[in-house]
């Protein structure tokens, strides 16, 4: 234990990450196809939650409409493949480019007021807008969604697809880790802790937030594309508010101010939501009860450290937030 504490933070994180990757890999060698299916969902949700945490935990904004990008990635990709008949690699590139263009537009609208509450509401409103539109438009398959064989040719079997998801998600999460240790992330944390002071030293806070949102939506788009591959199609559920709420709950349960929190939360929430709907009809009730209990008794999540405690109790310092 002493040797563990003497290691630097980065080395500790590297060891934890390596252990996590090796555990998942070894477990997948002995897993059946249905378990692999569940595991690929878990892995994708890990990427989704960590990407969401860029703006939730580190940016201090409340993204209530992250399902927008999740659904958009999968829908654009599937439309490119099924309706456009493009080559798979070309489709992935096109999906990323088109989604990023649209998300730039959406993020600019959301951040125009540069106010976190407005951001939350407008992003949720746009999410509702897209969800309703997807339901109505015949071209994108309306309420049944679009299906088709959209998996990559070398990864069409369940195990092949799992390893693809696993590989891509691992690299993306590593990139997010590097992003969190970049100088830009320091500025981002500043915008969470004290927006006014950041304005004083001459930062354009709106641009900082916009960059963070774009990075986050990029990774969420990739998660969406992978989810479309896993499900062999895109469905309106991906756009729904429930998806974004699930992402928020993952970050909340795991601990949104730590890097590994959302990853842990993703495992827990995915497990609960797949198993519970088999057991009981009132699955939403249990999920709601879990949310309420977590909010009341587990602020800061399961993985919390000293920094988290300070963030959770600003009132003790005598500075009452307006």
């Amino acid at each position, binding site marked *: 234990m002493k040797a563990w504490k003497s290691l630097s933070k980065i080395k500790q994180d590297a060891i934890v990450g390596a252990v996590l990757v090796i555990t998942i890999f070894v477990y997948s060698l002995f897993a059946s196809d249905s378990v692999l299916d569940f595991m690929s969902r878990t892995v994708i949700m890990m990427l989704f939650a960590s990407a969401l945490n860029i703006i939730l935990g580190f940016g201090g904004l409340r993204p209530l409409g992250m399902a927008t990008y999740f659904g958009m990635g999968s829908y654009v990709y599937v439309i490119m493949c099924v309706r456009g008949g493009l080559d798979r690699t070309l489709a992935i590139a096109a999906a990323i480019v088109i989604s990023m263009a649209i998300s730039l537009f959406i993020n600019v*609208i959301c951040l125009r007021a540069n106010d976190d509450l407005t951001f939350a509401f407008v992003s949720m409103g746009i999410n509702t807008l897209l969800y309703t539109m997807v339901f109505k438009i015949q071209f994108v398959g309306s309420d049944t969604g679009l299906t088709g064989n959209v998996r990559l040719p070398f990864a069409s079997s369940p195990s092949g697809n799992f390893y693809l998801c696993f590989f891509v998600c691992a690299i993306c999460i590593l990139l997010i880790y590097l992003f969190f240790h970049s100088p830009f992330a320091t500025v981002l944390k500043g915008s969470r802790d004290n927006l006014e002071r950041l304005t004083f030293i001459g930062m354009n806070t709106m641009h900082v937030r916009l960059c963070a949102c774009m990075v986050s939506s990029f990774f969420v788009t990739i998660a969406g594309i992978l989810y479309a591959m896993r499900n062999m199609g895109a469905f309106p559920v991906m756009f729904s508010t429930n998806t974004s709420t699930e992402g928020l709950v993952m970050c*909340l349960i795991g601990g949104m101010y730590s890097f590994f929190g959302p990853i842990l939360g993703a495992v827990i929430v995915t497990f609960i939501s797949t198993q519970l709907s088999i057991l009981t009809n009132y699955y939403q009730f249990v999920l709601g009860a879990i949310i309420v209990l977590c*909010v009341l008794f587990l602020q800061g999540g399961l993985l919390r450290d000293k920094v988290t405690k300070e963030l959770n109790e600003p009132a003790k310092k005598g500075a*009452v937030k307006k």
Partner: protein
Amino acid sequence: MTVSFFFQTLISGISNGMVSYLMIAGVSLIISGMSMVNFGQGAFYVLGTYLTYTIAAKIGFVPSLILVPILVAGIGYFVEKATRPLFGKDMLYIMLLTYGVAYMLCDIIVMFWGYSIRLLSLPAFLNGGVKIVGIKFPVYYIFEIVISGITAFAFWLMINKTKLGMLTRAIISDRPMVANLGVNVNQMFSVLFMIGIGIAGLGGVLNAPVTGMSPKEGLSIFGNVMPILCIGGLRNMDGCLPAALLVGLVNAFGAVYLPQYYNVLPAALMVICMFINPKGIFTRREGR
């Protein structure tokens, strides 16, 4: 479009807008007064509708107009109690708490009333039409407009003329100062929250005879009316009524011209309004 059809659409649009105003006024009051967001509002609205199905069958529709909002507000009291420990912390916690409460409420409604969508039959004096200047209007729509108009007026009176409203306005601008003056802020919050939720319950009652509702709609219905908040301005209570009327009218005329996409319109309108003035088009710009 004939003249009579135009006026009928106008009336139905106004009545729709007024009912969504009842729902959104509570949210707006809670946001600007307590700076917390209540996502459960839609669920309380649906709860009001379902309570009406049971209570109106026993004691009639008009008494339930008064009784149901009180019952719903009583439940709101407990929700407000639950949020107490979270004051002063990250606003996300309260958002998620009300989200969780909304999830639970939706499933509780399913437990008691089941999935079947039902419709309330109207009392005789509200059923039918009335002729004004040769154009026939449904009586119930006019009844809706009158009741919600009275509520909106009472709400305005409460904010601007009573002592409670004076303290509310004081809390909006400086909360620690009001607490220092010896006002029991916590108790005030309970009252404000209950008023906000009770108004949503009233909206649910008024809606019960018009639209059949599924219990799971609690969350999505909030997503549909939420653009009103952004159009009117988030921390601007006075902007709610014109924004709600605007959205109601756009919805009603949209349903005539674009029957397939009409429920996309409020959110699309919100996107346009964000470009005009991100603080809400009914908010005065500061410093000019």
